């Protein structure tokens, strides 16, 4: 029995180590490169497969995620996908004309997150500048996907969670978040 428990603990420890490892360079860069190129060429179905909407919404909802019903979770994930496809992908295409170079580092482990640093060179009004973006990736459905970006130490997801989601949760719980999300989805569907 003791040896069985030991084996169980050992396997758990090994699984934890495996989960904490950063993927290979090609594996880790794949979702980001595919996402950028797919958006560029308006292949939005391919682009959307590179985004971890489930991980994204779970992080946004923070502790309220565990209280949400399965139906709520499904609705929130679907709503997030519609918002990203309706707002972020077209915005990404607009920015594309300003990009002069995008270079990637190998994936790295930063505490419990896997990040891929990219250096983006942009031009505006004849001036060049660099933006360093950390893409945060996680495995979802057996595939590495993007779920957050960090610029100058600021997480996009944490910003949205603190400024938009938390006040809604305080005001009316998961229902308030769903209502706001559905209203935004309806608004962009009209455009």
């Amino acid at each position: 029995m003791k040896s069985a428990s030991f084996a169980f603990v050992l396997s758990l420890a090994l699984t934890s180590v495996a989960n904490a490892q950063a993927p290979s360079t090609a594996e880790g860069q794949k979702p980001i490169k595919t996402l950028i190129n797919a958006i560029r060429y308006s292949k939005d179905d391919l682009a959307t497969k590179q985004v971890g909407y489930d991980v994204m919404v779970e992080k946004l909802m923070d502790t309220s995620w565990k209280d949400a019903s399965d139906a709520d979770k499904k609705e929130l994930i679907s709503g997030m996908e519609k918002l990203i496809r309706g707002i972020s992908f077209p915005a990404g295409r607009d920015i594309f004309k300003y990009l002069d170079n995008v270079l990637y580092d190998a994936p790295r482990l930063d505490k419990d997150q896997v990040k891929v640093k990219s250096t983006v060179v942009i031009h505006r009004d004849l001036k060049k500048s660099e933006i360093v973006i950390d893409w945060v990736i996680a495995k979802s459905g057996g595939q590495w996907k993007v779920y957050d970006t960090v610029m100058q130490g600021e997480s996009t997801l944490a910003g949205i969670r603190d400024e938009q989601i938390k006040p809604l949760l305080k005001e009316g719980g998961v229902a308030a978040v769903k209502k706001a999300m559905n209203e935004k989805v309806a608004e962009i569907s009209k455009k």
Partner: protein
Amino acid sequence: MKFVALLALALTGCSSLGHTYVAPGYLSTSADAVKRITVGAWAPADQAGAAPVIARIAADFVKLRKNYIVPESVALKGWEEGCKENREGVLAVRVLKTAVEKEEVELTVAVELFRCKDGALLWRAEGKGDGKSNDENLKEMVSNYARDVDPAATQFAAPAFVVLQDVLNALPDVVLSDAEVEEKIELGLVKPVYERVRILSASLLVI
């Protein structure tokens, strides 16, 4: 406003596009245009380290800003070396002149697009420009190229980036079919050679 633009231009270096040539009758938008290309570069022997850096910068720009499918960037002695399987053409950058004075680097380049099947010169342009090796606006990019390609990047990457952009902007773009777009997206994901070697080594150790 004009002053701000001029100041920005002065701070990032300046370049000019010289003579350009397109082969009579060549249409880059036609279905049989040269789309799959090797991007190569040659630099004089005393600046040999600049060649792989310039090839990579040119390749990265063409991949990002143009529709060409670019499987590889290499240092070349002659453009013919870039003609391989599944390659229709070679975009060859030749460094014609370099003048280095402390951090100021002046570069003159000629960029030529050749068709592999008959050696035809399809397009050519020359560009000249100067810039600072230690351009503050490009320091992350420079350190990336120095780490991933060649230490010569610390001297050449920033000025070459400025000069090549102007020349390569003039390169007539191609039009890709849906299947070719998918090929281009997939190509960006091919495992680098060193990674294949690493995997092969690991497999051999297991065996």
